[in-house]
């Protein structure tokens, strides 16, 4: 049952990726200025004949669709080509960047989920705290991620000097501010949905039974109410995968972390469109796989869905 679902979703992901790659390739191809134009701009000794020969050599004189097919064939064959900007094979750039982004994403997701569920439980159990928690969620929803990052840099790196302002020499000191920034920007939905879900779960009759049996409040909350409340929270995680990844890309740019976001941004700024396109496709596939994973967790939690 789950196997068929996974198969169908993987097929969907493949189709979406193919359509996205075609659209992006055509859009980029419509732009004036190909790599040969850039080469001419860089070296005035190149003549028009040289340019024409180079175009023919690299297949740039072919129609756009033929170029796309050739490109897709080589990518599917495992050859991602070369980055003009970094003078390296694209595959060598994507690997480390993806790992760095996944590290940031994973830690931020854990922190956002943990803090969101904790705050949600606080709001659900203690009505006095419901107002402040709601206000915090509203602020988290409205704050621009990059501005929060800037403020944290100004406070902790510039004014207090406790943490580095950016980069990624490794170690938790370089991860702390980006992870907190990204987690806070994605906190709102988890907080609100866990508060609402816990509130309705705690109103169920089986909770009164558990209390009557003498179960402690903590046990009632985490053993009896939370398993049911977790389902909508995981559903939110699936829905928010795209927002989380988008936030990660902004966070990386603000903190100058070498990850997928910085790679895409640098590639776009440096007109290295092969790199930008492939990085975009990798990010899209990762997002869709994350959504699929969250959906599978949801089905595992909720047998009614399976």
């Amino acid at each position, binding site marked *: 049952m789950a196997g068929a679902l996974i198969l169908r979703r993987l097929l969907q992901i493949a189709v979406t990726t193919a359509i*996205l790659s075609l659209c992006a390739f055509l859009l980029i191809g419509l732009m004036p200025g190909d790599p040969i134009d850039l080469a001419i701009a860089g070296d005035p000794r190149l003549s028009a004949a040289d340019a024409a020969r180079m175009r023919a050599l690299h297949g740039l004189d072919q129609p756009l669709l033929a170029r796309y097919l050739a490109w897709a064939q080589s990518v599917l064959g495992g050859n991602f080509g070369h980055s003009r900007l970094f003078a390296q094979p694209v595959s060598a750039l994507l690997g480390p960047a993806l790992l760095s982004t996944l590290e940031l994403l994973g830690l931020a997701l854990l922190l956002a989920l943990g803090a969101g569920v904790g705050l949600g439980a606080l709001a659900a159990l203690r009505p006095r705290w419901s107002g402040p928690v709601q206000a915090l969620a509203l602020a988290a929803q409205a704050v621009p991620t990059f501005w929060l990052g800037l403020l944290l840099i100004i406070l902790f790196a510039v004014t207090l000097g406790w943490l580095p302002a950016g980069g990624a020499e490794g170690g938790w000191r370089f991860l702390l501010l980006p992870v907190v920034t990204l987690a806070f920007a994605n906190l709102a939905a988890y907080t609100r949905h866990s508060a609402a879900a816990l509130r309705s779960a705690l109103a169920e009759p089986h909770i009164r039974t558990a209390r009557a049996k003498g179960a402690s409040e903590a046990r009632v909350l985490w053993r009896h109410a939370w398993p049911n409340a977790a389902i909508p929270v995981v559903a939110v995680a699936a829905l928010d995968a795209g927002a989380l*990844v988008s936030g990660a890309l902004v966070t990386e740019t603000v903190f100058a972390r070498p990850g997928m976001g910085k790679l895409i941004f640098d590639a776009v700024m440096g007109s290295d469109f092969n790199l930008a396109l492939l990085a975009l496709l990798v990010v899209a596939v990762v997002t869709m796989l994350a959504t699929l994973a969250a959906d599978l967790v949801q089905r595992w939690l909720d047998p009614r869905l399976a």
Partner: protein
Amino acid sequence: MKAGLILLGALVLAALAAPLAAAALGHDPFLPDLFNRFAPPSVEHPLGTDELGRDVLLRLLHGARVSLAVGLAAALAATVIGTTAGLLAAWKGGWMDAALMRLADGMLALPALPLLVILAALDPAAIGLPRGEALSDMIRIAGLLALFGWVGVARLVRAGALSVLARDFVRAARAMGVGEARILRRHVLPELATPIAIATALAVGGAVLAESTLSFLGLGIAPPAPSWGNMLANAQELAFQAPLVALWPGLAILLAVLGCNLVADAISRQRR
């Protein structure tokens, strides 16, 4: 509702009052004054000056015009496209519904920002807009944001329209021989006013956030035209010299988005 409307109203008034404030203070927010860089807040410059000696308050007010206009335009365009698509999907059903909803699913599954970054970097001349002018930047960015914003509206409208179309009064109208176009316009659309209003309010906030992010990255509204996002573009390098310059534009974005979300929340609560 009140808090959100007051917040948004104050921001819109401030945006409208930008030329008045410029006249009252007697500076030009576009004119560099290099002898007056990073001036601290004073009577003359209530929020101080930026790295080119321009008045921060006046640039903030002018930025409000750009940022709010882009946010509103993008949200309205997204609402029009989304409402049309949602109604069409619900009413026509079949392959039209399947095609529109698969497209919406596909777009929702993708992370919007990297796509926006690549699309925003495309040459505006390729789609017939002049380069480097503030107005064409604004149209370009609003269009791009609408391209992604319609999806949420379309899904809400489709879900609402499906339930309205199955109701008895629609069947009664059909039985009376009312035309399909009139049924959609007069019977279905008014029933959907609430979800559409909520979706629009949320879309304005989302568009203001997205515009500021793109402009911060240098891909949105290009200077010298101020937007809340591009006022922050240099804030990172200036963090040591002028940390306060980074404060105000972000606060303005926060308040604008907060206002939109509060209004959306209030509308949905009123309904219940």
